[in-house]
């Protein structure tokens, strides 16, 4: 055994880079909501980027180590402590058998990623160790951690460097208001022109219903739909469609009132129209939004989305180069 969970925080789960290939059966990709932070945490201590670590939201766990190890904490700003002594985020540090890792209050962002030398050893299910709690799949018994849980890590011959760090300009958290880039599409044509442009002008606020499945937003204007006779099988509400797949990052607006952005544990389909999709390079940012944060959606086209993605890839490659 390597780690004993003393306190589990609000919802702390084993995650990696996810489980693609089963979305057509309703099993979502799962894995870290902030992929960049997860990869960086692993790189900081010489793990593979795809090794399993922990994702903790809003509140950190308290963990006792039973073996000497190395740790890196990335993502949100939440100061780690080893036996009460402060440590830096985004920076590797050693921890000794018998020592306890704990965290201060959350200062900025929403989710921290805790990488542990060798990676966490839970069974690989459908190609991944990620937890999908709604389907009771993966991770530790398909659920979030509880006090008393014990986690194993893989033995590793890598000797991590103490104090390896990701420079501040390569770290990424949402601004205030957060700006989330969206490609209008899917069922965008269901909205009146005025309503569509209002959606991008309004300031939205993250609702308390924000989790790994999706993030809900409140506070903007209710959407107005182009009138039509509802197609057979769609249902009577103007926001209904014949049940279809939902892209990751797609923005559905049930009854036209509160937008929901689907995330890594997305429901894979359903009967609500979607007005567009958050671009792939901004999905990580959503995982770092706190309830009540002001958010603006910014319309972009494919060229802008691809160039944003290339920028993110370049940043990751820079981190890889620095830490290898």
């Amino acid at each position, binding site marked *: 055994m390597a780690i004993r969970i003393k306190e589990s925080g609000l919802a702390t789960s084993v995650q990696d880079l996810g489980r693609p290939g089963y979305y057509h059966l*309703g099993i979502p990709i799962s894995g870290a909501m902030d992929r960049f932070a997860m990869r960086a945490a692993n790189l900081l201590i010489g793990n593979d980027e795809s090794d399993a670590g922990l994702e903790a939201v809003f509140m950190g766990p308290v963990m006792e180590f039973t073996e000497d190890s190395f740790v890196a904490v990335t993502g949100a700003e939440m100061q780690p402590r080893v036996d009460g002594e402060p440590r830096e985020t985004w920076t590797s540090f050693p921890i000794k058998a018998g020592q306890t890792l704990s965290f201060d209050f959350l200062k900025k962002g929403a989710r921290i990623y805790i990488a542990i030398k060798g990676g966490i050893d839970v069974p690989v299910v459908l190609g991944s160790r990620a937890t999908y709690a709604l389907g009771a799949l993966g991770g530790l018994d398909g659920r979030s951690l509880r006090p008393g849980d014990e986690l194993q890590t893989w033995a590793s011959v890598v000797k991590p460097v103490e104090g390896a760090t990701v420079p501040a300009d390569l770290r990424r958290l949402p601004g205030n208001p957060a700006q989330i880039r*969206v490609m209008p599409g899917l069922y965008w044509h269901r909205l009146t022109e005025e309503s569509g442009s209002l959606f991008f002008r309004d300031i939205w606020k993250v609702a308390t219903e924000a989790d790994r499945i999706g993030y809900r937003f409140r506070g903007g204007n209710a959407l107005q739909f182009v009138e039509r006779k509802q197609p057979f099988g769609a249902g009577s509400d103007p926001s209904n469609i014949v049940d279809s797949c939902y892209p990751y990052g797609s923005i559905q607006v049930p009854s036209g009132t509160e937008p929901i952005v689907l995330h890594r544990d997305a429901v*894979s389909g359903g009967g609500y129209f979607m007005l567009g*999709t958050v*671009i792939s*390079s901004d999905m990580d940012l959503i995982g770092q939004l706190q309830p009540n944060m002001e958010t603006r959606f910014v319309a972009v086209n*494919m060229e802008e989305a691809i160039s944003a*993605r290339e920028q993110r890839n370049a940043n990751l490659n820079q981190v890889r180069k620095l830490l290898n």
Partner: protein
Amino acid sequence: MSVRYSFGGDDHIFVEIEEQMSLDAFFKSLSITNSVRESQIGGVTEICPANASYQIKFNPDIIKPRDLLLELKKLEQDAESSKQQLKTRVVDVPVLYNDPWTHETLMRFRERHQDPSGTDLDYAARINGFDSIGSFIEAHAESPWFVTMVGFVAGLPFMYQMVDRDRQIEVPKYLRPRTDTPKLTVGYGGCFSCIYSVRGAGGYQMFGITPMPIYDPDQRISYLREFMVFFHPGDIVKFRPIDRETYDEYLNQVESNAYEPKIKDFDFSLDDFYSDRDQYNRNIGEALNGD
């Protein structure tokens, strides 16, 4: 059919075959997604057929979004000419309609329903013009169903009944979704029936419950040992009303891991089905229950 293509961000292509539900649209979606799978296009990571649409997820670092779009349009043209035949299977799904567990749940969420004075079955029977719950259940169980999509949550089948448009049952979803639905509830929303594979939130009307598990992440149930999800798009389902005694008996079998669903192979032809639906559905029933 006017097929509509849209990008879902920079890493999905969403394709609406038809705005409304039809078996033709479903068959086209299934046929195109099968060709996408066979053509093994580099960079494609998810291929998801749905009721009257489909969706592809891809890695834009590997294939340019517009190149993939062209590939999909080409496959659509090939699908036009292919025969609508399907090697599939028929599955018997026993259902305890009007069961105590969904009844308890629907009473708990009554204020979220269109008609708080009755049950979901009362309401669905009435708005679809049936004179009793009994005749409504008969219509639900009499003709078979196509699994036209698997999703929402892990392993949940959406099913479309194989009857004329004028005999399709249609019901709205709850006004506000429930926060609870018993596992293995047989539900209904729009023109689709479903089976809730896990306990959880839901907005479909609730008609009954099956004792037959359809999702097992632990892969302990005998018929889910090879794969944790039972249903795939294209499966044909026949519901069979059972009484409480039979339900309990099956449940005991499930608990001792002795339950085996009745499944028969079936070669489905859309043209033959269209030429005489009732007779074709009887053939499906005979294929399931014959030797």
